């Protein structure tokens, strides 16, 4: 397992084989370290605030990522500006490393829409709820990058790679095996980033696999490595190395970030029913944020910085609350818009009917010109 920071935040390169990763840490500046800490603290604060909002009935559900900040912020910052990210549904930390508006995630779990952000804008694709489905989209996208010849040109402006995120539970899904196979046989520039948080709702990782997950790709021809998922620096370095390699035409790689889901699967879950408090305490002692704070303090970062981060978190939490309370209800039209890209008579018929029905009740104000013409088809 690649680890640079132990649980006390002490930096060490444990073996010679890890030197290929350590060089990426040496390239980092102090400002990068501070950014990593800020983002981890920011997403933790956001996450706790979102849980609170759910408890107050402002969201139907929340999916906490507490404990996985090191894996997410470290790997997220290793993804280059040309690269595309295909997340699962717990990647709030990865999202902020690429400037995704956190309110779009709140909106989704509040039930305002199904996601709806523009995946092309930040190259951060929509959350995927069916486990593993997104890994095949990532494989197809990466095949497309290959077809366009945007790999191994040697020009960093042109070369691209793709990264897809999933959890230990998802590895049992057939789609991930098929994605590993597709990526391997087409030499796709795709990194598989598995956050092994050790629990799939109530099922321990032993339910999902008999071999260590970093070895899951071997039979498909995808090599892998395990990294300490609670060590933000190791996660950064390992992801950076294999994204660079993918961009340079070396093909797919599987990274298993060993971490722990400190919180519940979702706000509907009760982990006290299936796991020991001792296990949780063990992993809380290995918290990625506390560990990195110790490291930063050992590097001479003073209390002012941590105070500033704390204040920024308070401000973020206040903003998230205010913005959530002010979110408008979605329009009736959203039910029917974008079911298809091109006109579809059945959708228009049903839209017109609902508009008319709501109007008859004096409810929704229809936004059309009042024509409500029903077309039985043959429009194209």
């Amino acid at each position, binding site marked *: 397992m690649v680890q640079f920071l132990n649980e006390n935040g002490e930096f060490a390169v444990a073996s010679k084989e890890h030197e290929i990763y350590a060089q990426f840490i040496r390239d980092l500046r102090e400002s990068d370290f501070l950014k990593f800490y800020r983002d981890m603290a920011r997403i933790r604060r956001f996450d706790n605030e979102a849980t609170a909002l759910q408890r107050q009935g402002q969201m139907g559900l929340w999916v906490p990522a507490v404990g996985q900040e090191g894996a997410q912020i470290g790997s997220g910052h290793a993804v280059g500006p040309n690269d595309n990210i295909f997340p699962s549904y717990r990647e709030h930390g990865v999202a902020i490393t690429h400037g995704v508006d956190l309110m779009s995630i709140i909106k989704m779990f509040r039930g305002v*829409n*199904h*996601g*709806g*952000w*523009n*995946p*092309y804008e930040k190259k951060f*694709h*929509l959350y*995927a709820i*069916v486990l593993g*489905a997104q*890994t*095949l*989209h*990532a*494989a*197809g*996208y*990466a*095949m*497309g*990058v290959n*077809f*366009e010849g945007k790999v191994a040109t040697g020009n960093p402006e042109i070369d691209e790679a793709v990264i897809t995120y999933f959890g230990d539970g998802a590895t049992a899904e*057939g*789609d991930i095996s*098929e*994605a590993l*196979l*597709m990526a391997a*046989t087409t030499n796709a520039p795709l990194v598989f980033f598995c956050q092994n948080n050790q629990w799939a709702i109530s099922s321990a990782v032993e339910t999902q696999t008999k071999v260590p997950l970093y070895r899951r790709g071997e039979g498909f021809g995808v090599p892998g490595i395990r990294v300490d998922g609670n060590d933000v620096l190791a996660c950064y370095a390992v992801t950076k190395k294999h994204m660079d390699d993918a961009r340079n035409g070396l093909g797919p790689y599987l990274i298993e970030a060993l971490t722990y889901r400190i919180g519940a699967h979702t706000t509907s879950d009760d982990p006290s029913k299936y796991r020991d408090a001792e296990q949780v305490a063990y992993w809380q002692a290995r918290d990625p944020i506390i560990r990195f704070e110790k490291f930063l303090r050992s590097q001479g970062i003073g209390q002012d910085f941590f105070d500033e981060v704390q204040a920024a978190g308070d401000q973020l939490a206040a903003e998230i609350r205010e913005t959530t309370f002010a979110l408008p209800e979605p329009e009736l039209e*959203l039910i029917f*818009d*974008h*079911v*298809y*890209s*091109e006109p*579809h*008579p*059945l*959708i228009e018929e049903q839209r017109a009917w609902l508009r008319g029905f709501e109007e008859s009740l004096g409810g929704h104000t229809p936004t059309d010109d009042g024509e409500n013409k029903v*077309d*039985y*088809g*043959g*429009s*194209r």
Partner: protein
Amino acid sequence: MANTVELSIAKALNAGIRKAMQDDPKVLVFGEDVAKLGGVFRITEGLLDEFGSKRIFNSPIAESAIVGTAIGLAMRGFRSVAEIQFDGFVYPAFDQIVSQLAKLTNRSEGHLKMPVVIRIPYGGGIGAVEHHSESPEAYFAHTAGLRVVSPSNPNDAYWMIQQAIQSADPVVFLEPKRRYWQKGQVELDQPALGLHQATVLKPGTDVTIASYGPMVVTSLQAAEIAQAEGVSIEVIDIRSLSPIDFGVIVESVKKTGRLIVAHEAGTFVSISSEIAAKIAELCFYYLEAPVIRVGGFDVPYPAAKLEELYLPDADRLMEAVDRVMAY
């Protein structure tokens, strides 16, 4: 003078795909055995030589991956024509089709377009083993976000495959495999119809038979038999199963007052169920008889030696004609 050529449905599909690949360099073709072999029905024969292995390639035997990667390629701006080798092999891809492909445009509020064509040879009548003769259209027609079409003749095969590839939405393209070798004239200059239009193939005054895909030929046969018996049948090729062009059916039923809907699939919760319900709603005062559905039975597709008993033929259509004429 019209620029026409005689082709089989198989050759017309091949010509249509070739034309689409020539017209748009973003069109890719993949699936099991589609490259050198040209697919088990040879629909993509010769395309590898013309377009090379970056445009047409074999997929591993992994249907979910075939559709899942088509989705990723669509996100990247490609237009994939993905072949599923046989109807009964599409189900491993069911999640990618109904929960991903069909819903991503909606999920992304229109940011993602999904121009993916899933070609599926479907239906029975070829004496095949299990899983090679099924009619899965109702599953896909029931799924919002998908378009579902089925050509019945070479001209439609040639044009509808091109229109499907040009569509910004995902299209499940069902090819009537037992009719692949049926020949007909193909008009090469322009299509007569849009992808989602139904059409009257034979005008008549007493009964309307609406069908699609492999059952269209059977419906035309029944119309001929009926004519000899003095019953005038109007035959409609529905062509598009989602959306359905109800306007053409409504106009016909207003004239004939009697409707039979025919397909190979079992009739329970089927395309014909939907048409029967809709026509009862739209043509209530015009109907002289209840809408009759003629289809296969609601059983697993039987072993090959029994398929003649399973598949509706002209006689079964005539039995339905007798029933609607008795009202």
